[in-house]
């Protein structure tokens, strides 16, 4: 017999859909079907059932093979590694819940580590820009109910946030947007004709890397001032057309992604995009929102901020929190060879950092906490698999608009597997003993 669990939260991306339905066996041990999730979310839930999962911690041997050890032994190894290190880096945190993140912060404080989350390779530059200029924003329900102008700038939700447009930004019939997508005008800015761009009323096929110039040109166009014939590959008539579309709306929203955070200009691109939004508030109502990637990178930023004061790239090595991206950020720490121990959780720097940084991870003592086998676990000395957060254990997560949603446990993890939080508590308690703190 089976039962259907409703209002399930999908733990993949920052869209954090919470209308997923999952069918599990009565004893709660097998998950058989997933409804409403996109193909990526569906895969996440179903993969938890695969029989080839690693279910116990394993130590990497000299000859490349793996030796299985117990969770207690793994906690001992991890605590010893952190206790001995002078400058450990605790990285990731984006694919686990806030309760685990909080225990992780305790560990980082005791071991005086550097701690960082995946904003380092995603919206870190957004955070820098927000710290310079601010952030006029809103929750996704405001977009659903009010927005009649939607801009996707340097992001491709069709691929990265597949249900975003149907749940929030384009298709829903909200309170003041009863005609659904017909109530809205969509502008997409992207160097490629992406699947998202194909749906747009206007696609600005921008010259890659010239986003700052185009954003700046829009600000000029708002004021009706002179523009060169072409900016960033876009003719001035098109720029003015888009400026008018934006100004003529009642409630607009700019969603932006890696196209502007990762290309040259980086935080300055975002700064200019936020300036565009601020300027528009002189004419109408406009907001801007980063398309956060991992389902709980936002949560990691929130927990770091209320406990340490900064949202990412936090350096605790002196016994109090310091923040200086470029100096205290993970990739720079690694490429400068400053890290002498690597602790990875809820992320995959092995796959998503430039290889020059990954080479440094391979050189030092390292632990990788991840249910999957990944390039990070492949170059780490210890791989500790844990239960899938949001599937096999619940816990609070924050959506891309900072709304907190408590993920659910829908199925039991494989026999004997721990959750992130349980493993981290073992590490913390052992570390406290090693460091002599009561």
């Amino acid at each position, binding site marked *: 017999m089976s039962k259907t669990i*409703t*209002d399930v*939260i999908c733990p993949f991306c920052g869209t954090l859909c*919470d209308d997923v339905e999952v069918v599990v066996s009565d004893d709660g041990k097998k998950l058989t079907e997933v409804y409403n999730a996109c193909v990526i979310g569906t895969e996440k839930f179903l993969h938890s059932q695969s029989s080839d999962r690693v279910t116990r911690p394993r130590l990497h041997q000299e000859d490349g093979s793996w030796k299985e050890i117990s969770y207690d032994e793994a906690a001992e190894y991890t605590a010893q590694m952190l206790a001995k290190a002078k400058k450990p880096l605790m990285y990731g945190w984006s694919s686990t819940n*806030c*309760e685990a993140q*909080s225990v992780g912060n305790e560990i980082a*404080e005791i071991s005086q580590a550097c701690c960082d989350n995946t904003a380092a390779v995603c919206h870190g530059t957004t*955070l820098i820009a*927000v*710290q310079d*200029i*601010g*952030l*006029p*924003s*809103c*929750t996704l*329900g*405001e977009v*659903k*109910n*009010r927005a009649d102008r939607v801009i996707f700038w340097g992001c491709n939700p069709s691929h990265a946030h597949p249900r975003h447009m149907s749940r*929030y930004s384009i298709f829903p*019939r*909200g*309170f*003041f947007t009863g005609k659904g997508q017909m109530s809205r005008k969509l502008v997409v800015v992207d160097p490629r004709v992406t699947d998202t761009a194909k749906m747009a009323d206007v696609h600005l096929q921008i010259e890659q890397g010239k986003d700052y110039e185009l954003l700046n040109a829009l600000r000029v166009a708002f004021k009706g001032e002179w523009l060169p014939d072409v900016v960033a590959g876009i003719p001035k008539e098109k720029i003015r057309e888009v400026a008018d579309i934006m100004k003529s709306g*009642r*409630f607009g929203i700019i969603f932006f992604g890696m196209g502007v955070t990762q290309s040259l200009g980086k935080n300055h691109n975002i700064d200019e995009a936020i300036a565009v939004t*601020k300027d528009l*508030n002189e004419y*109408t*109502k406009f*907001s801007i929102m980063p398309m956060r990637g991992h389902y709980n990178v936002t949560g990691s*930023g*929130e*927990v770091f*901020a*209320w*406990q*340490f*004061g*900064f949202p990412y790239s936090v350096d*605790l090595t*002196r*016994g*109090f*929190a310091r*923040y200086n991206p470029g100096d205290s950020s993970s990739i720079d720490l690694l490429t400068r060879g400053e890290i002498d121990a690597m602790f990875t959780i809820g992320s995959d720097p092995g796959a998503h950092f430039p290889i020059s940084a990954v080479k440094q991870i391979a050189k030092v003592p390292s632990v990788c906490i991840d249910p999957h086998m990944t390039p990070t676990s492949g170059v780490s000395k210890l791989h500790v698999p844990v239960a899938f957060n949001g599937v096999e254990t*619940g*816990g*609070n997560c*924050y959506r891309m*608009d*900072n*709304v*907190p*949603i*408590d993920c659910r446990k829908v199925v039991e993890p494989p026999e004997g597997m721990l959750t992130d939080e349980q493993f981290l508590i073992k590490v913390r308690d052992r570390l406290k003993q090693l460091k002599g703190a009561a």
Partner: protein
Amino acid sequence: MSEYIIKNGHVYDPVQGIKGDKADVAIKAGKIVDKVGSGAKVIDAKGKTVMAGAVEIHAHIAGPKVNLGRIYRPEDKLFSCTPTKGMERMGGGASIPTTFKTGYEYAKMGYTTAMEAAMPPMFSRHVHEEIRDTPIIDEGAFPVFGNNWFVMEYLKNHEVENTAAYIAWLLRVTKGYAVKVVNPGGTEAWAWGLNCLSVNDPVPYFDITPAEIVKGLIEANEYLGLPHSMHIHPNNLGNPGCYETTLDTLKLAEGFKAKNKFGREQVMHLTHTQFHSYGGTNWGDFESKAKEVTDYVNKNKNITIDTGNVTLDETTTMTADGPFEHHLTGLNHLKWANVDVELETAAGVVPYIYSPNISVCAIQWAIGLEIPLMMKDPMRCYITTDHPNAGPFTRYPRVIKWLMSKKARDTQINAFKHKDKVLSQTAIGTMDKEISLYELAQMTRAGPAKSLGLAGMCGGLKPGMDADVAVYDFNPEKPVANPDDIEKAFSRCAAVFKSGVQVVQNGEIVSTGHKRTLWVNAKVRDNPQVVRDINEKFLKYYSMTQANYEALGHHFVPNPYALEVDATNV
């Protein structure tokens, strides 16, 4: 060790009318008791001042806009980091301290209860995570109702019973404490870039006025009989001439009587009154109308207020008055953050520097002090800084110094670049009054506790109450040599007890106790219409499901304390 005796201190307790007599305070099993055995641990309070733990009635210390402030102001941590030390976690932040630091700093000043002033209901999980991570002090949070779609639709048709049922539901699912109203109607207008600057400006689409919203919520609050009254941040905050809107708002309470089982006597609490007491027509002729506002409140005893004192610091403003923050960034051009929250509210954040060299800031400072000096009943006027809007809560000792010492006020007035304007536009120069320790206890303990409906629990030292006690190194029998000594004494307590556990000793944290989250569980008759309306709005308009909105498991509120309200027979 659960028995203590605090011996020979000068006790100030408005609940029992003790005005500085030397008396012992006995603590047993978390409560104040008449006496304890000989084995009780002795705390020597000779030559010291003893009061109940202070009660913070309004501060922004936990939640999404507070954390947005932390995230977007790394510079706020520049000179204010505290390292890990003993049992204290590391902390940082001058105007927006991190949560651990917030708890420690309040406790070290003798505060044992604090209310988070504005909780956007959709974000209740965030608010409670931060409350959980704020050690020592009991906390509650006020969900905001003044721009809520359900409230506006019900009150347009004057459906008080439905409004009450909705309030009861929302307090339960968000573990909220009271009915908070911020810029009624104006923040919904802000979702379209507009505002409501008077109590009669209709809200776009919803076509209800702020006056109707406020009166309806007062009625619903009294229908339920909640521990606290409707708590309001009126329209038109911060603009020259806004005192007229304030008087219009205060008048809405006329004719209403408090109805509750908690000892509360007011039907309206008007918050950070300083920001709402401005005269003049522009920043040039800007002047104080503290007298007009306090005259009204003095005469109308069903109102309580808190001050919102400006402390002359660099700080961060943050409020659910979204349009005000946009206006402020237009004035000072500092970075502006804003979050509109679907169906419910908004929030804005802008840094602000209250410089003693700017005449407007100096006048604001003066107004903040005029108000408590002109209020006749200290049980109805409480000291706050609307932290962090008018200044950080860590400046309370400085505000106390200014209130207790005319000399200290004069020193500050003489230090203003535009001293002449302060003296011409306000009456502060003519005020000789210096508040007494007893009045201080009324304004920071007994008064706010009573207003919050907690008079039976805290704010006093009567046997049976919670053993929340603060001991200050301040000898009331010695004349004050230097007013700065007042500030010093009230900055770091000699001892603090929270629920009978000693948490502070000689200004240092010695235990983090077992803080509680205070919330109000109001029961009403079954109301199928409201249930249906809630279901429908979640299905159609919210961006999350109702089941997930209601989820507030134990890990969010590990130690809840519910005040029970039964409104089923109204």
